[in-house]
């Protein structure tokens, strides 16, 4: 009990926690992120309607404007789309998919990039030259274009009957592959530094396997910057996912993400049903902005030069 309390107090007094408590922007960003993530995670329980249960859908409720405009009802707070689905509920479910795909893609990118960076930095030689050359070339293309091309090619190469099942995995793969370079470069740089230090030499002298040295000794010492890159990458990955889904090459329409919802709403923009596109778009901006601000704060807080 006392040990637990002591640990808690230590965490509370830690630099990072101190910097967090004294940054209003970070607090605001954290609250916004928590609201978004909480809403997304709890969607099945807090959403007022289930947008995917066709039994509860009523087509005659379609195109209901938001509650505060003249012909809106309190039943549908943010209005409904063309099929009578409640916008607030579809946004909550959509945020769930957007966040899920974004986080999975970042995880994939980070694992791929960190492994390649470790190998590249620790082993050196031709492998290092090859990996870094590929990284250079990939960096000369915008990440979103690479994700789009991988996604497009994979969709066409897969048999059509598997499209909808595999679409989410293809998307995670495409966004993940488009983002590994930054992780690899950073980790390679820090690995080169750590490699020359005494503890690594000691581990080598006692005959540990290179793989064990990389994973048990070098890896824990190069993860700081990775965390910062990953936080900012989450925002980029969510935007990329939304863009691909908006273009119609992302998640299948049966599992709409925020980008898909904007795409659906875009069809009704010209006829005046603005809320179908605008609210999912706003949700996306709030989510991305909050994660971005949190990432900026983390970068500054972890940077000893700025203290």
């Amino acid at each position, binding site marked *: 009990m006392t040990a637990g309390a002591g640990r808690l107090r230590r965490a509370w007094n830690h630099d990072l926690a101190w910097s967090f408590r004294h940054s209003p922007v970070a607090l605001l960003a954290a609250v916004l992120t928590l609201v978004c993530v909480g809403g997304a995670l709890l969607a099945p329980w807090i959403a007022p309607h289930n947008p995917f249960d066709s039994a509860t859908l009523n087509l005659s409720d379609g195109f209901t404007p938001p509650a505060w405009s003249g012909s809106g009802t309190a039943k549908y707070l943010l209005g409904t789309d063309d099929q009578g689905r409640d916008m607030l509920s579809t946004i909550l479910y959509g945020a769930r998919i957007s966040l899920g795909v974004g986080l999975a893609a970042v995880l994939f990118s980070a694992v791929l990039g960190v492994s390649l960076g470790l190998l590249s930095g620790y082993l050196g030689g031709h492998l290092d030259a090859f990996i870094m050359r590929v990284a250079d*070339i990939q960096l000369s293309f915008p990440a979103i274009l690479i994700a789009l091309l991988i996604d497009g090619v994979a969709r066409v190469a897969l048999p059509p009957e598997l499209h909808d099942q595999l679409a989410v995995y293809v998307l995670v793969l495409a966004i993940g592959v488009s983002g590994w370079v930054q992780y690899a470069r950073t980790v390679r740089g820090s690995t080169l530094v750590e490699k020359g230090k005494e503890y690594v030499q000691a581990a080598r002298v006692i005959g540990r396997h290179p793989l064990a040295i990389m994973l048990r000794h070098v890896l824990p010492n190069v993860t700081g910057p990775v965390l910062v890159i990953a936080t900012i990458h989450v925002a980029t990955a969510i935007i990329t996912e939304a*863009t691909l889904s908006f273009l119609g090459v992302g998640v299948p329409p049966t599992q709409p993400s925020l980008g898909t919802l904007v795409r659906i709403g875009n069809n009704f923009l010209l006829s005046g049903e603005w809320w179908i596109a605008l609210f999912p778009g706003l949700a*996306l901006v709030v989510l991305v902005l909050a994660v971005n601000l949190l990432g900026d704060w983390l970068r500054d807080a972890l940077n000893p030069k700025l203290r």
Partner: protein
Amino acid sequence: MLAFILRRLAQAVLVMLAVGLIAFSLFRFVGDPVLFMLGQDSTPDDRERITRLLGLDQPFYVQYAKFVGRAVQGEFGLSLRQVQPVSKLFVERLPATLELSFVAATLALVAGLTMGVYTALRRNSWLTQFLLAVSLLGVSLPTFLIGILLILVFAVLLGWLPSFGRGETVAIGWWSTGFLTWSGIKALILPSITLGLFQMTLIQRLVRAEMLEVLRTDYIKFARARGLTDRAVHFGHALKNTMVPVITITGLQLGAIIAFAIITETVFQWPGMGLLFIQAVDFADVPVMAAYLCLIALFFVVINLVVDLLYYAVDPRLRIDRAIATH
């Protein structure tokens, strides 16, 4: 110098060959072209004859070499969806994308430069604070949302500008231009703002940072000590020296603009190459996809090559560093 150019050229050719390989394997993986031509109820003899006729019985690398040979001449076969030569489709769509990209790039450069210089010189004015806040928002907003918001405000609510298409175009030879008609120019406004906004905020931030850096240097202090006017110091001395990195980034961003045109063209149903690609993905139109893949890779490789070589020519420090590093 020659070795550097040769190495960069070799790398460019390798990248193109790798992209070509991906494009080529698309043809091999998607469907069976022989079945596609003959239908399901063809005899094995017929199939074998067509296979030989198409050269599909030859080894992989021979087929690939033939593909590369045809691709270099711009020959990618017939579009499956529109049953027209792919090269013809691209020639039709190219002017739309290039005109849009050109206007967006000009807009981004002129507005970004002006705003960057202003925010660096008048650091505490309220307009500067406002511009910086807007640029932060511009970075967080995805391109397609900017497009939708612009459509909502200027096309739906105000009704000033068209929300889709190119308007009327005038054909000059094979090039169709929207610059010469009033409706063509009106149709360009919203898409080019959408496409240019992100690059504009990027250039603005870059120019501001570079300018602030330069303004702190000794030669600026010396210029002020000599009693030169603010105008001469800011524009004659400071701005000139911020331009080298700006030109490099702008050059590199040109490729990004052509790539992001895919999104803008989809939002505004702009009949360019990006829209062609997205429609091709929807219909699994392999020849069009392969051609787009090769074309966009070519754009990027050429732009990067030119920027690299220019940089090498402009910045003597780079040459010395490399010379030391290689000896």
